[in-house]
């Protein structure tokens, strides 16, 4: 991946009504690096990641994400990033394979890519999403985030509901992503061993 792939943001402010959640946050991540975001519950970690993903518009501030030297607008950024969050749900009425197949079709990916990733995260193809355990659902979220081989991974609570095997899988997937020149922003990475940390943002209430 080109060195011109970069996430750089500054002065990001976001409020919900009169409640100011982010008060001018900034950071920078280059390929192969991780930006860690910490802070107590309610300090705005998820809000920051949603702003970076283009799922929330910041009230003020600048978010610049470049791939191969080209600055992406919000819509393109939203489509390109890999996003994992506890808020993200997939279709309970569909099986694991159907869920992954659906998002493969939306992203114009071959079904083989979905099958490869499903096997990698160790999920049973035919089980309905509604019948998955919490840890399995988290594995499915990882598959969703990685499906289109994004360069930027935004991981909010990436280890939620994971057992020891899940934590090891998450660490391996993140390491592979970084080795391939990807970049990542990880919120609440307390139990995840982060290689190549570019910086840390500690948000306060």
């Amino acid at each position, binding site marked *: 991946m080109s060195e011109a792939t970069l996430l750089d943001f500054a002065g990001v402010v976001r409020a919900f009504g009169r409640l100011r959640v982010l008060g001018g946050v900034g950071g920078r991540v280059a390929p192969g690096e991780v930006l860690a975001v910490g802070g107590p519950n309610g300090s705005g970690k998820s809000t920051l990641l949603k702003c970076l993903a283009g799922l929330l518009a910041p009230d003020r501030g600048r978010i610049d994400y470049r791939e191969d030297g080209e600055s992406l607008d919000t819509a393109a950024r939203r489509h390109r990033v890999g996003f994992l969050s506890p808020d993200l749900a997939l279709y309970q009425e*569909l099986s694991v394979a159907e869920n992954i197949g659906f998002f493969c079709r*939306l992203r114009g990916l071959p079904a083989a890519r979905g099958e490869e990733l499903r096997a990698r995260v160790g999920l049973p193809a035919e089980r309905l999403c509604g019948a998955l355990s919490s840890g399995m659902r988290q594995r499915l979220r990882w598959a969703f985030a990685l499906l289109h081989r994004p360069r930027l991974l935004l991981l909010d609570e990436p280890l939620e509901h994971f057992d020891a095997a899940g934590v090891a899988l998450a660490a391996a997937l993140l390491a592979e992503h970084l080795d391939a020149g990807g970049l990542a922003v990880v919120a609440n990475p307390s139990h995840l061993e982060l290689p190549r940390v570019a910086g840390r943002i500690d948000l306060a209430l």
Partner: protein
Amino acid sequence: MSRAASTWLSEAVAVFTKDWRCELRTRYALNTVLLFALTTLVVVSVALGPLGADQQARGAVLPMLLWLILLFAAAAGLPRVFGHEEEKHTATALRLAATPSALFAGKLAFSLVLFFAIEALTAPLFLAMMQLPVAHPGRFVAALAAGGYGLAAASTLVAAIVGQARGQSTLFAVLSFPVLLPLLLLAIAATRAAVLGGDAGAELTQLVLYDASMTIVGLMLFPVIWNP
């Protein structure tokens, strides 16, 4: 077909297929809409019966009742096309992965098939139970198709607008009233003309224009509504 158009179409088909697959496994919208349509149909037919009035008077009143039944059946099921994505938190995944206009097209296709199925079941039953002869069956079907398309398209667009709001049902009713009023007046007039043997050409033309406008407006407006 260009690669971009092919990808767009493939996305829309994927959304349509996914929605029907989920619907056939839960049957939430199907059951709600069909039960509502059948209940109101039975109430109307039992309350009014085959009216003793002459064909002219029945032909003037009954098309309006048919469209009222269809309107409320649509209002019972179609607002959910976007609302349930928000309620079940699947909207985030769609926002990240889908092209907004393709998503709208897939949802619109789902609403159309659902609404045409309601019409296909309700209209023949209504005609049979009310013993209402139709002078021009072809025009009658055309009025139902054009009116049904407009109703489904407008409902899908309004459902997208209210999808992220609280109190969706109230908002849906408030916002859809001005949008659906001209459509319903035209659809009733076209259906009445078909029943009585009159000329429904002008109404059908206006219905087709309404349908085209609502589709174009939906495709253009949806990306703005859908994304933050």
